């Protein structure tokens, strides 16, 4: 069975293999100058990031040299999920469009087993592809992660086990849309919209709260050092812990300047403190596991929906 399914979808499987091959090549080639610079700048002597004198200059030299390369990985991280959508949505929709569902569904295998077998083969292929991409991105980002940490979305979304989880979820959402809409293009459109909503919704609404965030406080307006953490909130509060509005902050600074006193000292004297709320870097794998778990559950729900629908779909 698996062999026939693989033959049927060989184009998609070749495509996934090609994506991995291309990604591996691009990662290797583009990573060489970054790694060379990383060692040349003697960045490792400033790690973990410290306030040792001169280190901030070394770090900013390195970051400005590769300011374009870093964000590029963010876009590349979309590839596995997009590829999965392009595989998932036509999986059943194209059968409807070509009428081949009338062939497949009139063999003695049940529709559910038929869909499950197809899904299983493609899920494995998708997960492997995305896992490879995630691992490549992780290796590529090593120098950046050493400086910036892996908790901010720019790193978190493209590394580790969430990448295959996103892709498998996109595949399942695509399949569900294909079963429900029975046309490839509408199914792709709807699946893309649904997946983007899920993905952003989880990132913005759920991820900051997987574990209770940590806080660091400093007197005055100097920011406490949190170079490698995922900063969720950064605010000034009064001595009683009440948040200070930005306009009040501005007024205080203007006031200090007029009085020709140091604004920093003035605010510290007022009892103001700067509080940074963040998720610490060492929670990376915990967060990865939670987020991957969420998307695997979403994938299973979508798949269950598709299996339920396919049984009841008249044709």
């Amino acid at each position, binding site marked *: *069975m698996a062999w026939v399914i693989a033959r049927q979808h060989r184009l998609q499987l070749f495509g996934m293999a090609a994506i991995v091959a291309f990604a591996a090549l691009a990662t290797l080639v583009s990573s060489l100058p970054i790694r060379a610079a990383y060692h040349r700048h003697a960045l490792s002597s400033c790690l973990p990031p410290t306030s040792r004198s001169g280190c901030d200059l070394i770090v900013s030299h390195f970051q400005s040299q590769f300011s374009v390369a870093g964000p590029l990985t963010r876009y590349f991280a979309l590839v596995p999920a997009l590829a999965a959508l392009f595989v998932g949505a036509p999986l059943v929709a194209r059968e409807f469009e070509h009428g*081949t569902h009338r*062939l497949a569904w*009139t*063999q*003695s*295998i049940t529709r559910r087993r038929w869909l499950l077998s197809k899904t299983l083969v493609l899920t494995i292929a998708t997960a492997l592809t995305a896992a490879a991409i995630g691992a490549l991105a992780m290796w590529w980002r090593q120098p950046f992660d050493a400086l910036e940490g892996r908790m901010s979305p720019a790193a978190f979304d493209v590394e580790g086990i969430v990448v295959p989880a996103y892709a498998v979820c996109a595949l399942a959402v695509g399949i569900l849309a294909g079963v429900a809409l029975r046309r490839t293009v509408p199914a792709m459109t709807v699946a893309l919209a649904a997946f983007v909503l899920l993905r952003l919704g989880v990132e913005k609404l759920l991820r900051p709260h997987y574990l209770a965030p940590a806080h660091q406080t400093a007197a005055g307006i100097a920011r406490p050092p949190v170079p490698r953490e995922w900063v969720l909130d950064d605010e000034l509060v009064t001595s009683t812990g009440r948040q200070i509005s930005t306009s009040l902050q501005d007024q205080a600074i203007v006031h200090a300047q007029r009085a020709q006193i140091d604004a920093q000292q003035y605010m510290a004297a007022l009892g103001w403190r700067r509080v940074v709320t963040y998720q610490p870097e060492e929670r990376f794998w915990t967060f990865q596991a939670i987020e991957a778990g969420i998307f695997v559950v979403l994938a299973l729900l979508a798949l269950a929906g598709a299996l339920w629908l396919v049984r009841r779909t008249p*044709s």
Partner: protein
Amino acid sequence: MADTPLEAVGLAKRFRRGWALRDCTLTIPEHAIVGLAGPNGAGKSTLLGLAVGLLEPTAGSIAVLGNDPWRDAQTLSRVGYVPQDAPLYRSLTVAETLEFARVTNEQWDGDLASELLLRVRSEVKVATLTAGERARLSLSLALGKRPALLLLDEPFAKLDPLAGREFLGMLMDGVAATESTVVIASHVVADLERVCDHIVLLSDGAVRLQGNVDELLGTHRLLTGARRPLGTIHGVETVVRERHSGRQLTLLVRTNAPVLDPTWSVDEIRLDELLLAYMAPERLPTPRSPEPGRLRWHG
């Protein structure tokens, strides 16, 4: 085991655009080769779709080999179905297509399928096959199941006469090998006439006529005579259709005894004429509520 191959009672199917099949009651006898005739949109494909569980009945019931095809996928292991336009996976080769059928069916006679599929090379991609070859590949997939019931939906529609004849030859060989009951849906009566021993005529979603071809032809006659007010004619059970042309009157009648009345010239009727006469609904005497007086003819 003598499950009726196909039995429908009060079967109806409504799509969004309206009723495709209404109050359809029919029985397909075992080992018959049945022609499912009717114009386009008569409900032939719908009936076959219901028989293979692709569609769910809106009302009534259909039993295929004693099972409900919508609920019981197991039924399909003994039903061969050649869908309209013979859909196949274009990217697969012939051999891979046969492999697909093998892995998706618990009973699969690969030898029979390849034996029937003469002169189609197995390493060729389906996309490059001719319409005739594709139709025969589709048929071999259906026959490889060694089906008790074989359903074909407009199998000749895309075939030239030669390919049609080859297809028919293969069908007959396959039926001989599997002893299956066959239902062929077609709107071309000539295609059905060559092979079928039974006819089911669908029109506007309803069964208009069903029975053994010889019996139907034996009991229907064309009567031609001078125009006259109609009285009873001995031997005539029903007048199916009457047509006036000038001073001449032509009646298509269903008989229950030989018509010996010398004022009528009695002719046999061809199958296509017979089906055509039953297709046109406005000329039909509706058996349940006959128009009083005019169309009641009892011998």
